[in-house]
């Protein structure tokens, strides 16, 4: 198939349609409006349904309903809107519903701004109320965003759990060439759905458990799924780590900025590599733990959120330092080069 030049939002929407998503419920917010806009046009062509809900809360309850009847469904929003969706997403997790959520983050807190930011690492990997996690996938290119969306639908069905695609203004808005792979549909058990009970007892999809012992059991069952995710679904990219003495940690397009910086630093003889988590939950702990480096420099467009997981991963064996820009300011390769050069010259441990 010939490649297309696509915005990230368009590629995410198109990949969802190709993965069998026929239902989309959303509510507008910058910088992800191109996702609902594309869906409103594209779902019409393929016999799907698009609803602009009256609010984010409504949209997140609509995906609950759609998933409960066994449909492939997606919603999308940006940081403050994701806060509103958190209630419904927790219900989806509690009811073990496969849903795909896209969060195109913006700067915060509060209304914040609309420029690129990674301010939602926490609310994505360690979300709203209740003991639960979505599986979180963080693309760094438009091609990867399209690929991960297709995987997201399968992962949601595999684990009957919300899966989140985490991007921000750059992933949502910039254009890059994309080729869509042929999506191979997989069979999943849908015997639990509420799609008509003729000839069998009715199924109930609910997250209410009044008996504490049963709710405890339910929580354990959910966390067994997370343990399996940790064993089987962790994804990451390493870049020039083979002989690295220093390691950068970054996710999303920040990793691409780091790669440009690393090319420069390597020219100067500073042996630095990069670990880019692709799954933020489950977090790629082992690769950080096993990296034999003097220090790790965690770089984020936040005040330092992923750094907590990096520190937990290395268990105090490797010093973890931080460099961040916030508010919608995107770090430049030069800034990162200067920071690493400085640490190198000062012999930071």
């Amino acid at each position: 198939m010939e490649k297309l030049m696509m915005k990230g939002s368009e590629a995410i929407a198109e990949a969802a349609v190709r993965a069998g998503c026929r239902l989309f419920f959303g509510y507008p917010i910058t910088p992800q409006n191109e996702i609902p806009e594309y869906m409103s046009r594209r779902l019409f062509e393929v016999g799907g349904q698009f609803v602009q809900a009256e609010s984010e809360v409504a949209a997140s309850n609509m995906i609950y309903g759609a998933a409960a009847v066994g449909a492939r469904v997606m919603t999308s929003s940006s940081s403050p809107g994701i806060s509103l969706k958190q209630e419904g997403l927790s219900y989806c997790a509690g009811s073990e519903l496969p849903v795909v959520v896209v969060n195109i983050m913006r700067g915060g807190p509060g209304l914040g701004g609309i420029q690129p930011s990674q301010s939602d690492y926490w609310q994505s990997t360690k979300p709203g109320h209740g003991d639960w996690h979505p599986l979180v996938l963080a693309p760094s290119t438009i091609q990867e965003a399209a690929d991960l969306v297709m995987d997201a639908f399968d992962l949601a069905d595999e684990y009957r759990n919300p899966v989140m695609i985490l991007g921000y203004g750059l992933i949502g808005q910039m254009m890059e060439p994309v080729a869509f792979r042929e999506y191979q549909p997989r069979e999943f058990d849908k015997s639990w759905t509420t799609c008509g009970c003729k000839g069998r007892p009715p199924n109930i999809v609910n997250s209410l458990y009044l008996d504490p012992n049963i709710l405890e059991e339910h929580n354990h069952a959910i966390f067994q799924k997370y343990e399996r995710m940790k064993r089987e679904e962790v994804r990451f990219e390493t870049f020039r780590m083979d002989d690295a003495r220093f390691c950068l940690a970054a996710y999303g397009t920040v990793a691409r900025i780091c790669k440009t910086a690393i090319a420069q630093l390597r020219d100067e003889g500073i042996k630095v590599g990069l670990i880019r988590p692709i799954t933020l939950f489950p977090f790629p702990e082992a690769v950080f733990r096993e990296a034999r480096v003097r220090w790790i420099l965690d770089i984020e467009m936040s005040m330092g959120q992923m750094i907590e997981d990096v520190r937990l991963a290395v268990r105090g064996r490797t010093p973890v330092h931080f460099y961040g820009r916030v508010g919608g300011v995107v770090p430049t390769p030069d800034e990162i080069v200067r920071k690493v050069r400085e640490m190198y010259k000062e012999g930071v441990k």
Partner: protein
Amino acid sequence: MNPRIRIFVGAYGSGKTEVALNYTFLLCSRGERVAIADLDIVNPYFRSRELADALTSQGVHVLAPEGELATADLPVIVPGVKGYLQNPDFSVVLDVGGDDAGSLALSRFAPVIAGLDHEMLMVVNNHRPWTGGRDGITAAIRSIEKGSRLRVSGMVSNPNLGEETTPDIVERGHAVIRDTARALNIPVVFLSIMAGVVDGNLQDLPYIDRGVEVLELRRRLLPPWYEQPLRMAPQRDQWSRIMLQEVRDRETSSDQIDHRPS
């Protein structure tokens, strides 16, 4: 002779802003007095106002929201646009937002523009969704004409796949766009090609009709990792390895497997 007012319209992401910016810098290099108006009220990213400093330093008058409003997602059109449109001393470039929604901003000036020497150019990239062929391009033109209350008088052929553009992509894409223009009985005014994609003298390319000017594009709106351009897409970088981590029973870091088979 170039018309004094050139309006660049097109579908979302067709390359309007890059073309408008490059055209503006070209006019500057010819010593013309130029004003560029950023009429994009739709998309708050990758707009010509991001180049305001570079443009101003070349003597270009930039008509776009300033300060905090420059990065707001508010439909702001600054005063003064009409004045420049009516000022015979200035060449005016209008960078309009995408699709019919974006072209609505232009309709406010339609009665003024209609009586002035102008050209409204539809920027087309056949590698974008919805505008891959004659039907899609025609539908996009009609909806933009309806939104703007002005007629598209020519096309800018902008076939590209970004960093992955090849001479073949340019030639085949241009053929699609040229055939559409012929069917609609409007000229292709510019063929825009990213610098470095095609070797040799661009104006001598065999598939270019007489009257088509080749606009050599320098990308003006780049993401930050292109500070030192990397030609290769990062995923295909020889140094990168994408892995699924097997935590269970893992002993050495060499025990890593490739990206999940699709």
